[in-house]
């Protein structure tokens, strides 16, 4: 079955998720994976659903975004992208003074090592910029990567740590 990728972004207010979920339920959409957060007070939601066609979902969401500043996008996507885990899970923490290029420089170093980002959060808190990234690394590359990250971090005058993300099976 084909899937739809939907984004909803705009100024936050109570009830956006309820409005979006209700509109999609009315056209038989089954929400599979979704995530929602607030980014500097802006509501931001991304979800994958199955069921309706793209135009049906767009029509369902039209009333939700019609009278307000919310923006929704609907796009048909292929079936689930099979992402085979490529290796070892690591967590990178970065913090320092906000400046241009921190994310691009450090994620470029990760990419050059063959690392695959699986989760990323950045926060600007006053003058402090914080970046947290979960990344899967090809086996045996962590040590070399940590050195290259340290070099890049020194150039940016930020602090970086890379450590194994252990997940305990219970």
């Amino acid at each position, binding site marked *: 079955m084909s899937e739809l990728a939907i984004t909803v972004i705009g100024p936050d207010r109570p009830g956006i998720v309820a409005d979006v979920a209700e509109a999609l339920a009315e056209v038989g959409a089954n929400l599979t994976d979704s995530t929602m957060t607030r980014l500097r007070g802006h509501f931001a939601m991304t979800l994958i659903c199955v069921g309706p066609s793209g135009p049906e979902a767009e029509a369902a969401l039209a009333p939700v975004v019609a009278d307000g500043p919310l923006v929704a996008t609907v796009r048909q996507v292929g079936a689930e992208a099979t992402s085979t885990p490529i290796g070892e899970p690591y967590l990178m923490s970065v913090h320092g003074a906000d400046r241009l290029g921190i994310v691009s420089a450090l994620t470029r170093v990760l990419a050059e090592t063959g690392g695959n980002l699986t989760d990323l959060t950045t926060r600007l*808190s006053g003058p402090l910029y914080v970046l*947290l990234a979960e990344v899967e690394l090809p086996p045996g590359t962590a040590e070399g990567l940590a050195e290259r990250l340290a070099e890049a971090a020194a150039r940016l005058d930020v602090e970086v740590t890379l450590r194994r993300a252990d997940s305990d099976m219970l």
Partner: protein
Amino acid sequence: MTAGQDCGLGDWTTAVLGDRGGVRSVLTAPVGVLSRAGEQVDPLADDVVRLAADLVATMRVSPGCVGLAAPQVGVGARVFAVDVTGHPKTLTSHGTFVLCNAEVVEASRWRLGREGCMSVPDLTGDVKRASRVVVQAVLPGTGAAVRLVTDGFEARALQHEIDHCLGRLFLDRVAGAHAVYQRKVYL
């Protein structure tokens, strides 16, 4: 004395530090001293005793503050104050104390917990810490060696402050990409 035994603070109290300390201003990230490992100190040196008294005084005037380390007041030294007395999450407590050159020598029973920091005022994070630790250190003013065994919230506070002395913030240890939070402001 067996390995796991708490030898306590003996007769050490903050009175050993002499005159009441002064309140110093607390630095917030980003600032270099918070990310550099502090130096070993001489627990009998006048400036170290003075620093210890100042850390206690500053901790006491800071609402909700259960620990304060020298790098947070701009001094790259391995000294910190802790007092978790009366905190709802406290199990064992050694009262108000200051440790120099402290290190964790045993750690077990790892638990996730949310923590904040005066030097990162607007964020909190979920951090895995040992809920039982054995810490070795020396006391300012007397130089006496101590071995503290503690648990729960005091164990978490000790690890957080020892991290400060190693140039580490809780941000360096948070449990995942979504494990930092904007500190909630309730109206």
